[in-house]
């Protein structure tokens, strides 16, 4: 009896140690985020005070108001538009290409490897040729230019990921649908998409996050009209001063779209769907 009690006590102790360790690690990793977010609500004096102010004495909304008045929020809208449209296009084209590679072995194994190798080129190498190209077309500082670039960069990733997800779907499910009365397109919509739902969502989230955060192409391709969030945030690092409060506020705004998207998609990101399709 006593050994059982002793074991339980030891287990409780270990659980407590683990909890404290996990908490410490979380605090370390979340601290910069906390500091940035708090900075958004501090007065300039509090930002630079020594010893530092851990929590603002009162919530200052001035940074958010300044961003709204100066038109900075427009850059977040630009990022949302560019990332959304480019993700939808990349997913549409990429999934169809992946289906072709997975099911019809289009181009053999070589085409699939070539597709992913495109992703391995350092983006900055392409930035200036692309700039010249888009400049000659009069497309610099337009949604179209950045959307085209992000679709191009995301396509290999989407193709590669979706090819794997589609290959994992048992072919018999599609065959069964084809015999049950589906055309190839209907089988794609009614069988492949539902079966690959988790893969589709996960891939789309990564493609969106890439496009939303991308900096190198954005700084080369934008001027005034379609400046994106990562480029706009650098405007607050000025030669004479850095506007930490605005940077903090901008960061909060910038995190929100991705944050809400992941919350909304979380259900799909974690759920495995193919259980029970085949022999168990």
């Amino acid at each position, binding site marked *: 009896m006593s050994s059982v009690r002793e074991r339980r006590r030891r287990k409780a102790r270990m659980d407590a140690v683990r909890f404290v360790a996990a908490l410490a690690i979380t605090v370390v990793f979340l601290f910069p985020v906390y500091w940035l977010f708090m900075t958004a609500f501090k007065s300039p004096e509090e930002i630079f005070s020594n010893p530092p102010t851990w929590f603002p004495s009162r919530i200052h909304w001035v940074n958010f108001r300044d961003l709204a008045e100066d038109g900075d929020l427009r850059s977040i809208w630009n990022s949302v538009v560019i990332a959304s449209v480019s993700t939808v296009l990349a997913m549409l084209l990429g999934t169809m290409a992946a289906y072709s590679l997975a099911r019809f072995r289009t181009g053999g194994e070589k085409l699939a490897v070539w597709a992913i190798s495109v992703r391995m080129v350092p983006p900055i190498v392409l930035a200036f040729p692309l700039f010249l190209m888009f400049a000659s077309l009069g497309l610099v500082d337009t949604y179209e230019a950045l959307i085209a670039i992000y679709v191009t960069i995301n396509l290999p990733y989407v193709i590669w990921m979706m090819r794997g997800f589609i290959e994992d779907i048992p072919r018999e499910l599609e065959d*069964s649908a084809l*015999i*049950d*009365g589906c055309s190839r397109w209907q089988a794609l919509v009614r069988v492949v998409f539902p*079966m690959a739902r988790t893969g589709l969502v996960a891939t789309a989230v990564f493609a969106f996050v890439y496009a939303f955060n991308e900096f190198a192409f954005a700084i080369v391709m934008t001027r005034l009209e379609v400046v994106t969030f990562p480029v706009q945030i650098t405007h607050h690092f000025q030669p004479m001063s850095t506007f930490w409060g605005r940077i903090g506020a901008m960061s909060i705004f910038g995190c929100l779209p991705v944050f809400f998207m992941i919350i909304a998609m979380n259900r799909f990101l974690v759920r495995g*769907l193919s259980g*029970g*399709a085949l*022999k*168990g």
Partner: protein
Amino acid sequence: MAHLRLENIHKRYGDVHAIRGVTLDIADGEFTVLLGPSGCGKSTLLRVIAGLEEADEGSILIDGEAVDDVRAKDRDIAMVFQNYALYPYMTVYENIAFGMRMRKLPQQEIGRQVAWAAKMLEIDELLDRWPRQLSGGQRQRVAMGRAMVRKPRLFLFDEPLSNLDAQLRDGMRTEIKQLHQTLGITTIYVTHDQIEAMMLADRVVLLNRGVIEQQGAPMDLYGRPSNRFVASFLGSPPINYIDGHVRVADGAAHLALSDGSSIPLAGPRAAAIAAAGPRPLTLGVRPEHFLVADGGDGAIRSRVTLVQPAGARVFVNFPIAAASMMGEFSARQRFAPGQELSLQLDMERIVLLDPETGRAVDA
């Protein structure tokens, strides 16, 4: 119900010639089993019939109408797959109803059909469940229900029992046969399991390397195989082969073996063998074609090396001319390793083969 005709079907995958000119007639309501070792082309042939693969040459006719350019969905065929192929994101009801929904049948009719199939397959309690909540046997029943409700012209089964354990397989095999008897739908069933084929089929089509080796009633293939491949493939334990040379003396034939001994060939067939004169010959002897003899000159003498009792039957190993044989006898007969054996061949039923061509020899 439908009559199916395949005319000179060829299918190639790159350099692999998977099906080499298969011609086959399947009568209305017939239960045909495509049998063969893995890689023989039987599943490919089934997929070609289903419209999931296109034949490179040849033609498929259902009720006299060529369907080569008809898509799978319009061939009015239902198929049951080896791994069930149930849609995991649909309930049992939705799985069974899927084909009818795609064909835009009225909801009421769909409900009636699903209820009919579910009752027949005894899965009416499971209609609200998900495939992942079902056992292997239940999943197989759902897959069959999905095929049944379509009332198709052709039923295709692609090794549907391979994933089930032995006991369940026996039960499902009986159910499939009963289902065929009840519905009378022309059925093509692919398997590599010869016992399954023998028990289910009206007709067995034995394929090897993309060609039909032999087709016919199961017992015809078993009893009168056209060649060595067919003789070897059917039967468990497998057929035994005794190689020798026919010698004729005083009008009587006997088979001289490599170790100097000989087997007298008696009975009506022996006369025909003798008439054909001396030649090399292989005797294909199924385990049950060895009979215990009561000694005498005509008997084959050997010695028991191994005894394997199997309930009502007993399998006994013994050598003939250094080759190991297996005989099957009634368990009422007693055998022990080392025991002397005196055997006869059931001459009317053994298979005679030309050792060079492997083809059956008439006699």
